[in-house]
């Protein structure tokens, strides 16, 4: 995991910086020109979002530049914060206390520890195989059978979404890809850029042209126009950046499209869970965005698929 900084990486980070600067400039222009009350509210929200993007980009950029370990630490902290938000809404009972302690303080650090020591075999099965039997067993031993099925299912799902799935993003750093040695950080950055750009572009296209809702009850903001516009433009962006990846342009296009679509599905699933629990956001940590889980919902669902497709088609040996 020796991450030498290549010229492509510099261009990529420079591009992110450029987008952030452009966003901030747009904030200034908009706050001059908009005068209606609802317009001002939208601009204030846009402002808060751009500011939060600066913070998130700087944290993530620094983590990438410090090499593998920095990224693993940042992603593991994101997992813990996301897990915290998820379990707060989960209908667990007193009997699950020990099981919850194990998810936070044993399984999460262990999962990222496995990434750090590059033990792929256990990384891939620990939570779905060992966690799957250990957590319900711990809960069952406490002797509370009321709503047991619901409680154990929700703990396992939370662990999968917040820890197992997300850990596949830093695991990209471990992949042994042909003719791509020491450049895995670029692939991780490309993946994060495509996922997040897809979110932002879907939001923008939805605001500008959105008409027909995909699932009005689950998420009133997601429209077919936003989905199509966002996926197509983010796929375009991912394709245009093919030169930082091990893919050729059409492979990059397919990968980017797949990442956008799984990301969209992830956002929809997480919206449905929020609806079910009667909340609008998972938390309040990131101003303008909601909680950590609101920001990384699509990343969580796109990461494992992207990891495995890359490993299967481009992995060496």
């Amino acid at each position: 995991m020796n991450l030498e900084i290549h010229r492509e990486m510099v261009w990529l980070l420079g591009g992110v910086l450029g987008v952030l600067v452009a966003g901030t400039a747009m904030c200034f222009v908009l706050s001059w020109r908009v005068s209606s009350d609802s317009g001002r509210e939208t601009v204030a929200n846009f402002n808060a979002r751009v500011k939060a993007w600066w913070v998130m980009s700087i944290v993530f950029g620094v983590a990438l530049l410090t090499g593998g370990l920095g990224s693993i630490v940042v992603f593991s902290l994101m997992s813990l914060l996301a897990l915290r938000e998820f379990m707060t809404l989960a209908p667990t009972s007193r009997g699950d206390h020990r099981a919850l302690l194990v998810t936070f303080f044993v399984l999460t650090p262990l999962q990222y520890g496995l990434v750090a020591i590059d033990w792929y075999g256990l990384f891939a099965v620990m939570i779905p195989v060992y966690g799957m039997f250990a957590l319900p067993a711990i809960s069952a031993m406490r002797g509370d059978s009321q709503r047991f099925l619901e409680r154990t299912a929700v703990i396992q799902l939370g662990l999968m979404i917040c820890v197992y799935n997300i850990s596949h993003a830093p695991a990209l750093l471990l992949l042994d890809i042909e003719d791509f040695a020491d450049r895995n950080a670029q692939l991780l950055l490309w993946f994060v850029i495509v996922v997040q750009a897809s979110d932002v572009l879907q939001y923008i296209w939805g605001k500008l042209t959105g008409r027909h809702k995909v699932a009005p009850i689950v998420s009133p903001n997601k429209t077919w126009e936003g989905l199509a516009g966002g996926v197509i433009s983010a796929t375009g962006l991912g394709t245009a950046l093919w030169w930082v990846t091990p893919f050729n342009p059409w492979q990059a296009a397919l990968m980017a499209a797949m990442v956008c679509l799984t990301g969209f599905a992830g956002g929809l699933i997480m919206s449905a869970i929020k609806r079910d629990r009667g909340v609008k956001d998972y938390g309040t940590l990131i101003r303008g965005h909601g909680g950590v889980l609101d920001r990384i919902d699509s990343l969580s669902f796109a990461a494992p698929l992207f990891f495995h497709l890359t490993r299967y088609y481009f992995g060496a040996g």
Partner: protein
Amino acid sequence: VYFANHTSHFDFVIIWAALPGSERKRTRAVAARDYWEKGRVRRYLAQRVFNVLLVDRARVEGRLDGTSLMAAALSEGQSLILFPEGTRGDKPEPVRFRSGLYNLAANQPDIDLVPVYIDNLRRIMPKGEVLPVPLLSSVTFGSPIRLLPDEGREDFLERAWLAVCELGR
């Protein structure tokens, strides 16, 4: 006087944390003497670390009763945190309040009684557990109430209990 539902040992700590600094300094929690004087660690925590005002749950010969102790603290300008259920529960809604709050309100009719609802702490650290799970929780403060001129014990306790429950909805 802040009165809250009681679900965990952290309750008064997070009420403290939610208060502004100047108010925090003069606010003390009121707790049961029989529980907090048992064992050296608990006694140390109650007296040295948190400066808890310890009162007897039942009447004890030769000692000042809880109401007088609390009245004395209030007259010195201190604020108090009270858990009128008398013990920690594990339900979202508190159990019926005991009379301590009424006795204090009757003794000190000019003091504002602020209802407080603590959400989710019972899941972070339930009764009988040692390690907390890092979930999110919240504290909600309501508008103060006082004992009405001709309000009886039961009516007042019911009203106070409802004030806390309302904040939890």
